[in-house]
């Protein structure tokens, strides 16, 4: 199985993926800098600290969701996953291949968010007099990114088209808008397509989202086992 993990890594670190990672980090840094430059020097340091986090995190949410959706979908596209054939004929199970790849991609998203967090720390230290970082929302953002990554993967497997990544991203943005207002529809929508509440980076249904995340993972496994190579 070690060889399978090594293959996943080799196929993940492609020129395209590394270029996308570089530009996404650059875009984030520019966004964080913009958030820092927009601060009012006359404002209380505590408030500036909060504004900086809110503005930076808004951009980061979009970037993290899109990166995760693209990474999961692209990694399981027919072309990028073709090497699985050479492992399947050697007796590696489809479910073993699937889960090992999910592990590698999930770790990749962790690294991505760690880099983003490092950029947030650097930008905060540059632009704020008394910078006090918020770390917990980044952990929640990881789960949210994973959820939309799995959702993107499900759409890609159903439509068999990499361009279907746009659908979960639209659902993600729609969730941000829907969460501006309270009501039954918001509750239902958040169950299927979770997002942070409009006033704080927390989920509406708490741990129920983890159950949905696990269900989505199993649904993806079922799709993967059913599909032809």
């Amino acid at each position, binding site marked *: 199985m070690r*060889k399978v993990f*090594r*293959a996943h890594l*080799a*196929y993940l*670190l*492609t*020129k395209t993926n590394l270029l996308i990672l570089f530009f996404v980090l650059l875009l984030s840094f520019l966004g964080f800098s913009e958030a820092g430059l927009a601060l009012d020097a006359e404002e209380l340091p505590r408030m500036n600290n909060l504004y900086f986090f809110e503005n930076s995190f808004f951009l980061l949410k979009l970037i993290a969701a899109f990166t995760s959706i693209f990474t999961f979908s692209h990694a399981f596209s027919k*072309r*990028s996953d*073709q*090497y699985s*054939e*050479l492992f*399947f*004929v*050697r*007796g590696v199970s489809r479910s073993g291949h699937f889960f090992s790849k999910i592990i590698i991609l999930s770790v990749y998203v962790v690294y991505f968010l760690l880099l983003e967090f490092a950029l947030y720390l650097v930008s905060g230290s540059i632009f704020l007099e008394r910078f006090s970082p918020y770390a917990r929302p980044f952990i929640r953002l990881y789960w949210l990114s994973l959820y939309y990554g799995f959702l993107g993967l499900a759409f890609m497997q159903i439509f068999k088209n990499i361009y279907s990544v746009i659908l979960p991203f639209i659902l993600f943005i729609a969730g941000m808008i829907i969460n501006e207002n309270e009501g039954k529809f918001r509750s239902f929508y958040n169950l299927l397509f979770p997002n942070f509440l409009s006033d704080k980076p927390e989920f509406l249904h708490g741990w129920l989202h983890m159950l949905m995340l696990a269900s989505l993972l199993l649904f993806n496994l079922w799709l993967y086992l059913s599909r*032809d*190579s």
Partner: protein
Amino acid sequence: MKIIEARNIRKSFRREVVLKDFDFEARKGEFILLVGANGSGKTTFLKGLLGLLRFDSGSLSVRSNKIAYVPERFFFPEFITLESFLKLFLEKMDQEMFREWGLSEARKKEMGKFSKGMRQKALLMQALHADAEVYVFDEPMSGLDEAAKETFLNKLAALKNEGKTVLLSTHNPEHFRMLADRTVGMG
């Protein structure tokens, strides 16, 4: 002894029927050519045989789990050396195998810098140097120069002498006529 037996195989993609009532069998040690025009179902049959896709109906029995495979098309990782790539699939390697394929110099080279022919050689190496009982090749000569074709034919002859079962699909059966025990026409 029959090592592969397929009966009444049917496979369609959407409404297009690619394989219909297709029968096939291979005995241990046989060298079989699958020939046919584009779209005749050669690749579909080989993939189904390997468990990479599901037939709609029919029965299939493959009495070996030691199989090596060369797909028709393959996407290679860019930032991995030839040696690291082969290590993913082979238990052991030696200098000789790189030399006979003319890839001694390219052993530590990243595969993103490989030509089409070099990539095809790498793909053949992962299969030909595997410890298998059944070898399945789908259009294996694609992109190979004359020297590499010669090396490949010698390797196939060696497999035949060792009593391995070989299934090979091709548009150009002339290269393999001397080695093949049977030719199966498709389509």
